[in-house]
């Protein structure tokens, strides 16, 4: 009752305030990232460190917030399973970002397969399972079909990786890629595509619903990672210097932006779960409160009741 009254009189409630504030902070941070990114690294040697630091911070923040949301679910809540995998995926990414930065500081050249890949692969598996669990919960009556579709998609992904690897192995090996490295180089974009498309379908299903926002982050990552993989496979050779700059700026902004989307989605979900869902519009409330029963003969008692049959031999 009190909450209802508050919602009617106070259109900007605390959860909404935090959601808006976090949106603004994310936007400012994205602008800052873009600005630093465009600085010349020779004139401003600290710029690269700031960029890495921002990415690591965003990744860690997303993972911490996701874990915070995870704790809000009851142990027997079905969505907790989705969020468990989702959180694990974000932690894999956060750890991968940190390790990658450390390795990058320690070594001039990194082998094409290194410690970070364990975490990247772990993250892909976790996100794939999160998406799979989400579909299972949307269609609880079609669990077998979803399982079958998941298995089929997994097999198709592996076949696509094998097929592409066979096609590209020659050129990758001449560029110095190891066998496992060449597999991973193909696995990442294919996984991005599969998980990204599945996430896109989830986003489409949730439409404007607040629950679907977390999946936007996976789409942003899929696009950004897809372009990056294309770069790794030698795509930048096809671009002019200026196009390369713009595309890499876009890709990196999207990469950083994806973490920010996760952060925002986690803030939004955290606020939703702590403070409840946004109230109904005041127009609908007023309409509801002023609604009256239809006047079809209601009023007289005799009109309202269906008289039972008069018992035989007992008339008054």
């Amino acid at each position, binding site marked *: *009752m009190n*909450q*209802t009254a508050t919602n009617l009189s106070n259109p900007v409630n605390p959860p909404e305030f935090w959601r808006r504030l976090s949106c603004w902070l994310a936007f400012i941070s994205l602008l800052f990232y873009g600005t630093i990114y465009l600085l010349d690294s020779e004139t401003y040697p600290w710029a690269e460190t700031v960029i890495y630091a921002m990415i690591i911070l965003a990744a860690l923040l997303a993972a911490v917030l996701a874990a915070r949301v995870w704790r*809000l*679910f*009851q142990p027997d*809540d*079905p*969505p*907790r399973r989705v969020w468990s995998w989702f959180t694990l995926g974000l932690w894999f990414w956060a750890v991968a970002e940190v390790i990658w930065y450390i390795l990058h500081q320690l070594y001039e050249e990194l082998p094409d397969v290194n410690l970070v890949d364990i975490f990247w692969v772990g993250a892909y598996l976790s996100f794939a399972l999160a998406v799979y669990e989400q579909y299972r*919960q*949307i269609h*609880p*009556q079609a669990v077998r079909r979803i399982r079958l579709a998941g298995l089929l998609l997994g097999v198709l992904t592996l076949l696509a990786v094998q097929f592409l690897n066979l096609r590209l192995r020659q050129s990758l090996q001449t560029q110095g890629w190891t066998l496992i490295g060449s597999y991973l180089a193909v696995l990442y974009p294919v996984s991005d595509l599969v998980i990204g498309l599945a996430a896109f379908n989830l986003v*489409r*299903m*949730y*439409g*404007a*619903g*607040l*629950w*679907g926002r977390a999946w936007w982050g996976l789409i942003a990552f899929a696009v950004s990672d897809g372009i990056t993989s294309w770069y790794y496979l030698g795509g930048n050779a096809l671009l002019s210097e200026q196009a390369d700059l713009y595309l890499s700026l876009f890709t990196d902004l999207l990469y950083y932006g994806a973490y920010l989307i996760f952060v925002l989605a986690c803030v939004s979900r955290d606020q*939703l*779960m702590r403070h*409840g*869902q*946004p*109230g*109904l*519009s005041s127009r*609908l*409330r007023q309409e*509801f*409160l002023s*609604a009256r*029963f*239809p006047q*079809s*003969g*209601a009023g*007289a*008692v*005799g009109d*309202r*009741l*269906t*008289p*039972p*049959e*008069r*018992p035989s031999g*007992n008339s*008054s």
Partner: protein
Amino acid sequence: MLPLFKHALDSRLSGSPAYLQHLQSLFQADQQTGLIEIDVSSDRQIVLLYTQGQLAGAFRLFSAGGLALEPFELTRGWEKPEANIRLVNTPLTAVRLVRQAIEWLPQQDQRTLPGTELASYLHQLRQERRSGLLRLIGPEADGFLLLVDGQANLGESLFSTERGFENLPPFLRTALLGASLGVAAAVSPAMLEIHLHPLASGNLPYTLLQLRQAFSRWMEALLQGYRQQVGSAMLASLNQEINGLLELKNWHLTLREARFSDEHYFHQAGEMAFAYRWLLRLINECMSKILGVQQVERLFQDSFKTLTSDFQQALREQELNPLPRRSFERL
């Protein structure tokens, strides 16, 4: 005639028709819910049912049946200038049950048996898959229990006891347990009077009961589907939002976890359907903000499909089927 809910706290008075009218106006002014019983003669009784001050039914009861009365008929046929009058405050459900019992008169089965045999009698009704309203009058409690296909529906049962009104007094809980296991239950051997009013399909209380049950099942499936996707905390938040509004409206409809309970007294099916349609619209709006329109539409449809064809038909007749979001706005 046996008084209804005889274990409930009551006021026993005697007075003239004018005094009755005065009592009625008091019931109305205080927005009381309950019943007024008047013994107009040795074998005839008038029962007036009130819900929040509104006259919800007036009946003349005979030993073998009942008859709906118009308000102006209340003061006719009094044997003496003054009659015994009994006032009882009850929950809304009690009024609904009394009306069902009266409209389902005459009872098909009336018997007196010791409490020790109650479990086997209930077991027999279970095996015969009998449906109806069972009126039980005993030394500890008296009231009504709804049976659907032999199964007790506790949401539609109410008993007056010395402790107040209860859905399931201890002796009945024991007897029902015995009935479900098919064994004798340790119930006090005191004699019980039992009346079984079979469900008479087609009349208003039956229509309302069916609609209520169908809608409850639908809501249960819908809310479970929602919880499946968003978890208990979000479901609790939706319930809080909707219950707050329903309370403001003074409709006694409640969402509790993944359950819907309707304790409101609706005078006609149209009123009930109107309230239920509003509830659907509010739930639809709340869920859409979280899951999006398309998901919610699917949830509504999937949960509706879980209902039996009878229930689907009952709901469809009152335009309570899953509709695209826009259609709710035509309310």
